[in-house]
């Protein structure tokens, strides 16, 4: 069965639905399933005129789905719509969704959260702390325009590529882009972590030494000695601790409690500050 030809209006309808609702109804059980199905309905109504056929597709599109809705997600949506228009079976389109949502979520999370947002939000925050109102405004503009453009572009690019997109993904181009993004992200995080995480100790070690018969009181700052070993040693250690605990499978909220105890007791007792 060859599906009906989709019009520009159908595509725009799906695009707006994805834009406004993709994560609405997000639940532990099937995550983004409701938003996904809502986006696909205008398409399915066109491609599946038979009521029973439509009902089956309606139900199938409520299966588990979760990915990064900004980078990666729209590629899946566009390709799925193209396959649907070409009359692909539900097995094929489900395979596309399940096969791509994991890897593309990894790409999106790295590119957006680790790289792009870290940069725009830290710059905006530093400006805001100086009392500069342009800080948050700049950050907002760098959200509004690129986040819209990148979703629009991926959605329609991948629709035009259709089944081709999967071949493109297989060709390694996306793999190379991911690798490059990951490397940039790692370098940036390596620099960001010590610039943002701050931990210092005011402790001093005071001792009396006798030099040529005279008693001199020497004060040795622990912090200066730590800096001589390696700058930002304490921030590196505490970041390493957080990473280690998360890697062990701790959830973020438990890790925060540990950080709160260290920071609060350390600060209140004067060990850190």
């Amino acid at each position: 069965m060859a599906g009906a030809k989709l019009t520009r209006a159908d595509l725009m309808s799906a695009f707006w639905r994805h834009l406004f609702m993709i994560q609405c109804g997000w639940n532990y059980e099937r995550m983004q399933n409701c938003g996904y199905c809502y986006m696909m309905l205008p398409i399915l109504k066109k491609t599946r005129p038979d009521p029973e056929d439509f009902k089956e597709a309606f139900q199938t599109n409520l299966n588990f789905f979760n990915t990064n809705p900004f980078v990666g997600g729209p590629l899946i949506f566009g390709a799925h719509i193209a396959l649907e228009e070409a009359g692909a079976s539900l097995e094929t389109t489900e395979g596309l969704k399940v096969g791509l949502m994991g890897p593309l979520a990894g790409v999106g999370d790295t590119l957006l959260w680790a790289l792009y947002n870290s940069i725009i939000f830290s710059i905006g925050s530093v400006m805001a702390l100086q009392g500069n109102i342009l800080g948050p405004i700049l950050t907002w503009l760098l959200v509004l325009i690129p986040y819209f453009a990148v979703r629009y572009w991926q959605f329609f690019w991948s629709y035009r590529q259709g089944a081709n997109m999967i071949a493109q993904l297989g060709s390694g181009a996306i793999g190379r882009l991911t690798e490059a993004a990951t490397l940039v992200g790692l370098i940036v995080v390596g620099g960001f972590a010590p610039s943002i995480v701050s931990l210092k100790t005011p402790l001093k070690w005071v001792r009396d030494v006798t030099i040529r018969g005279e008693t001199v009181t020497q004060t040795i700052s622990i912090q200066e000695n730590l800096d001589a070993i390696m700058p930002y040693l304490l921030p590196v250690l505490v970041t390493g601790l957080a990473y280690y605990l998360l890697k062990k499978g701790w959830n973020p909220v438990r890790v925060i409690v540990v950080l709160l105890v260290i920071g609060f007791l350390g600060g209140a007792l004067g060990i850190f500050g």
Partner: protein
Amino acid sequence: MNIVMGLILGAWAYYCVYDMLGPTFVMSFRPLLAGFGAGILVGDIQTGMQVGATLELMGLGVYTYGGATIPDYTVGAILGTYFGKTHGFETGLALAIPAALLLTQVDILNRFLNFIFAHRADRYAAEGDVKGFERMMVLFSHVIWGLSRGLPVFLAVAFGEGLVKAVSAFFEANPWFNKGLSVTGGILPALGFGMLLKIMPVEKYPAFLLLGFVLYAYLKIPLVGIALAAIAVALIYQQLKYRAKEA
């Protein structure tokens, strides 16, 4: 007056959540922009920016990867801005952190309760009821999530003044408490970086992380400079790596 402001800020919290679920025109679930928006609404942009930016730097890199629950700095920033306006920045911030942590419990509850939508959707699909499903999506699918943040903000703003006064008096009487909080604020970003590192292949490419650290800690290069250098290094790495294949 408190009730009106509670409704306004509660509505802003609701929008911040909805913005994350859908359009992301503002990305106001990030504390910088949640606080900035709250600052505009309460008429104290400076406090909004200070509270929002401080929480933003604490929560840099903290995102809900795969739907994990994280501290709710969004609500923290809104409440911190509101109470910071009258009681000062320090008190606002000191309230924001516990509020952010308390709300994590609400987040888990809300994500759980949303199963209602998945199950109702199944029913609509079985009946082929497109209209019913679409009505549920447009009108209700964001309500549990939105209220889970909007309601606590409303209650805290409308009725929390007495409690906040007591807390603020306690802070003034106990300076050590503030010292503890400020050190905590300094190390909380470690969580965000830990989470970022966890989703990145650190063990496969440790040298790149080290390079970034050296550029900042020893060479004192500003962050945008590090980002540009990082792009250069990644391009060089790939040119060398794939040269053999392309030649």
